[in-house]
């Protein structure tokens, strides 16, 4: 029983590790789906929103 459990544990451990992604990618990768293209604009928008908030509070 203990041996079976150990084998099962090792099997799932190895398969989980394999899924995690430590392999080198194949050539000709598919197109990426980036999201961080507008980070600077978002930071700027945050600063502007903060400025408006403090100006409103002052008035």
């Amino acid at each position, binding site marked *: 029983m203990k041996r079976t459990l150990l084998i099962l544990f090792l099997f799932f451990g190895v398969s989980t590790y394999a899924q995690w992604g430590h392999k080198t990618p194949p050539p000709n990768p598919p197109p990426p789906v980036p999201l961080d293209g507008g980070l600077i604009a978002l930071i700027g928008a945050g600063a502007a*929103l903060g*400025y408006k908030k403090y100006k409103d509070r002052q008035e």
Partner: protein
Amino acid sequence: MSSFKWGSIEKILQGVRADSEFVKFICRFLSCLIVFTIIYEGYLWFTEQQRELDWITYKVSELSHALAVALGVANCEFSCFMDGCYIGVEGKMINVLEGCNGLKLALVYSSYIIGVSGWKWQSVVQVIVGVIVIQFFNVLRIGMLVVLRDIGGDLYFFFIKYVFNVLIYIAILFLWLIKPYIDRALYKDVN
């Protein structure tokens, strides 16, 4: 010339004194963003040394794959490599890289929340809820992109370039705009 310079510096200093609250906000906002980015980049460097993919990209990809399967994409495959995950039907896959996991947006969102309110438990609640909302939209975005890529056509490229990205940015701005109302509700609970 030198008097002009001194005058302009004095004007700037007066402006800083007048907007000291705003200056404090900007300092907190940017310093939080820098600290969070350093921690995140350190984590990415560590995973790179381990020759592994980072956990966030992996989880976002895994959930997006589950969503695509739930939305009816037949034979949807999912495999991860050191720099990202491939999701979709063979020949029509999409590549989820580190820059697609939405965490950098979540860091900017969190920095703003802490910049405005400081380190309070209400801020932490809003950061956690906001990060969950951002990741929910991101998983929805990638899942839908897998579906659109499976259907084919130019629609996929239109959505990938504009619609989904704009939606997530609008969601973040919306969360920032409703922050005062959330604050009011949370502080009312405290009192």
